[in-house]
C-alpha cells in the first residue's frame, strides 16, 4: 500500500538494558486517523515517538521499520522525515517572537511577503491575529499550545506525533486544545499517533487504541 499517506509501523521492538519494552508492534495509521498508544510511564511509548521522528536515545535498542506515505523513513535523519511532534511542554523557542517561532517552522524558499502572509494566516487559524511580534512568554498556556501546533503544521509534516501534549493543561482548557489539535490534524488528512496515559485523551481521539506495557 505505497503512497496512500499512511504511517505504518512494522515489527517495532524497543529494548533497554536487555529488557524488552515493546515487542513486535505492527500498526497502520491512515490519513486523518488518530491512533492512541496507551501505557504506563516507562513502557517505552515516548521512546517509540522519539524513534519515529529520528531522535531516540541510543541507550535504547530499537528494531523494526517505519514507512510514511510508502517510503521507508527508518534510516533518515530527523529533519528529512517530515514527521511533526508535539510534547507536553510547548517548547516555543524563548529567544524568538511568536512570529519568529512560526517562521522557524515554515520551509525556506518562500519570498518575504508570502512568508509573512502564511504566518499571519496561521495566527488567524490559531485565533491569535496580530500576535506575530509578541514575546511567547507573555502568552497563556492555551495560546502557547495553539502556536506550537501551528509551528509544527507550517513545516508541512506528513504525519503528526503527539507525546502527551495535553497533560500540562488544566482540565477546562484540555478539551478545547484537544479539539483544536485533532481538528486541524484530521482536516489536513494527517495520520496522527497519540501516546498518553489519560483515558479521556483516547476517548476524545475516538480511534483505535493500542495498549502496551
Amino acid at each position, binding site marked *: 500500500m505505497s503512497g496512500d499517506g499512511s504511517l505504518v509501523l512494522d515489527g517495532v521492538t524497543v529494548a533497554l538494558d536487555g529488557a524488552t519494552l515493546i515487542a513486535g508492534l505492527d500498526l497502520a495509521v491512515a490519513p486523518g486517523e488518530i491512533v492512541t498508544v496507551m501505557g504506563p510511564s516507562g513502557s517505552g511509548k515516548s521512546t517509540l515517538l522519539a524513534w519515529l521522528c529520528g531522535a531516540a536515545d*541510543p541507550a535504547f535498542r530499537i528494531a523494526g521499520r517505519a514507512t510514511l506515505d510508502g517510503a521507508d523513513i527508518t534510516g533518515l535523519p530527523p529533519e528529512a522525515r517530515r514527521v511533526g511532534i508535539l*510534547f507536553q511542554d510547548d517548547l516555543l523557542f524563548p529567544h524568538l517572537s511568536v512570529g519568529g517561532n512560526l517562521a522557524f517552522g515554515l520551509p525556506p524558499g518562500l519570498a518575504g511577503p508570502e512568508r509573512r502572509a502564511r504566518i499571519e494566516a496561521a495566527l488567524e487559524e490559531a485565533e491569535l491575529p496580530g500576535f506575530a511580534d509578541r514575546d511567547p*512568554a507573555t502568552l497563556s498556556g492555551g495560546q502557547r499550545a495553539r502556536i506550537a501546533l501551528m509551528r509544527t503544521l507550517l513545516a508541512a509534516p506528513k504525519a503528526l506525533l503527539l507525546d502527551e501534549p495535553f497533560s500540562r493543561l488544566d482540565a477546562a482548557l484540555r478539551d478545547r486544545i484537544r479539539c483544536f489539535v485533532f481538528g486541524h490534524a484530521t482536516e489536513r488528512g494527517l495520520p496522527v499517533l497519540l501516546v498518553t496515559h489519560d483515558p479521556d485523551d483516547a476517548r476524545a481521539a475516538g480511534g483505535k487504541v493500542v495498549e502496551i506495557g
Partner: protein
Amino acid sequence: MLRWVPAVTLLLFLGPVAAGLVGTWLPAFGVLPALGGTEFSLAPWRRLLAEPGLVTSIRLTLGTGFAAAIVSLALVLAFLAACHGTRPVVAVRRLLAPLLAVPHVAVAIGFAFLASPSGWAARAVSPWLTGWERPPDIATVPDPWGIALVCGLVLKEVPFLLLMTLAALGQVPADRTLAVARSLGYGPATAWFKTVLPLVWPQIRLPVYAVLAYSLSVVDMALVLAPGTPPPLAPRVLRWFSDPDLSRQFVAAAGAGLQFLLVVGAIGLFHGGERLAAFLGRRWIAAGGRGHGERGGRIAATGAMGIVFAVGLLGMLGMAIWSVARRWRWPDVLPSVWSPGNWARQADALAWPGWTTVSVALAAALIAIALVLGCLENEQRTHVTPGSRALWLIYAPLLAPQIGFLFGVQVLLVASGLDGRWAALVWGHLLFVLPYVFLALAGPWRRLDERYARTALCLGASPGRVFWRVKLPMLLRPVLFALAVGFAVSVGEYLPTVFAGGGRYATLTTEAVSLAAGGDRRVIGVYAFLQALLPWLGFTLAIAVPAWLYRRRHGMKAFTA
C-alpha cells in the same frame, strides 16, 4: 569535520603539557643538546640540592600552599554551611563576579597597597591610635613567613571555590536534603556538613586540588607578596631559568622537576587527609549529634567571609585611587591632590602591552570557545558523553605546576622556531584558557532541554541550523560568559607570557609584576587597575549584551539570569 574537534582540542592542550614535562625532565637529568648536555647525569640534582636555603624555600612553598588552600576551603565550607539559603549567600553571590574577574597580580598589588606599612590599613589608624608619625619599620608585605602571600591567595581562591561549590550545590537536592535533616532535629550547619557536603564533595574535589596545586606553585603573586631571600620554590626556579648563566638552566629544570614532585606529593597527601576526614566524618555522623553552639560559628563564618570580600574590594578601590593620586602623604587617608596625570603620562607606555594583552586574550578566548563548542556539539550529535575520567584530562593543565612544564614548552617552541611570536603567545595562553572555558560552558550547554533541538529537527531544520538558530542563541549568555572567563584568564596569565613570549612581548600583567618591585604606587596603580578593569569589562559585556538583546523575551530569563 566536527568529529575531529575533540581530538584536535586534546592534542592542542594536552600535547604541550606532556611534551613540556618531557622537555623539562630531560634537562633535569642533564640532557639538553642545545646547551651541550648530551649525557644522562645526576649533576643538576646535586647542584640543586646544594643551593643555599633550598630547604627554606621548600618549607615556605609547602607552608603557604597548604595554608592558603585549607584556609580558603574551610572558609567557604563554613560559610555555606552556616548560611545556606540565607541573605549573606545571596549577597556573596552578587559580589562574586567582580572578585573573580580580577587577575591574581592585581589582587596581590591591591592587598599590598592595603597591608604595607604605609598602606591604607596603617593610615586609617595613624597617628591617633598607633602614634606612628611615619610609616612603621616593620616587614608586613612581604613578611618573612609568607603570611601576606597566604592572604593574597585566600582572597583569590575563596571566590573561585565559592563559585564551584555554589554550582555543585545547584546540581544536588541540597534544599530537600537539608529540610529532611533539620526535621530530624539537626542544626542547620551540622545538617549541612553531615548531609549536603558528602553530596557536593565529589564535584568540588578537582577544583580543590587545582587550588592546592596553584597555591603551591604560584609565581606572579609570590613575586609581589612573598619574601625574596630565599623565595618559595616556584619563583626561585623562574629566577634560575632567567639567569644569564645558561648552565643554570639545568638547575632550573631540576627545580621544576622538584616542584612537580612537591605538587604530586601534596595532592597525594591531601587525598590521604580526605580519606581520614571521611572516616572520622562517618563516625561523627553515626554518633548522631544534632549540633550545638552553631550561633557563634555562624557569626564567625559570616564575619570572616565579609572580611575577605571587604579586603578584596578595598584593594581594588585602593589601586583605583592611587592611579589618580597626585599627592598622597602619610598618614592621609585620601590623596590631597587628585589628577588624571598618571594615566596621561603612562598612555604611551601602556599602549603596546595593552594591545598585546587584549589581542592575545581575545584570540585565545575565541579559539577556545570555538573548540569547546565543537566538542560539546559533537558530543550531542554522537551521543557520546565523556566519563568522569575525561574531567581529569581537562584539569591536567590546572593541576600540573606551570613552572613544571612551561620550560619544556619553551624548548619545543625554540626548536620549532615559533618562540617569541604572537601566535606562540596565544597558544601558550590557550593551554590555560581552554580548560576554564570548557568548565564554564559544559554545564549550561549539557543542561539545555534536548527536546528544543529535537523539536527544531522535526520542523525540518538541519543540525547546523539547529546549532546556529536554536542552541547558540538560547545559550548566548553562558557562551558569552565563558568567553569572558577565557578572556579574564588570559589577561591574568604571567608565566605563559614570560616563557612563550621569548622576552619580546610584555602584557599588562608582566609589566605590573616588574613594576611592583619598584616603588611608584601611582604607576603601579595605573597598570594594576587597568589589568583588573579589562576582565571586568568583559564580564559586564557578557551579562549586558544578552540582557539587552533579549529585553523583550521574558522566557529567556531562565537562560540569562
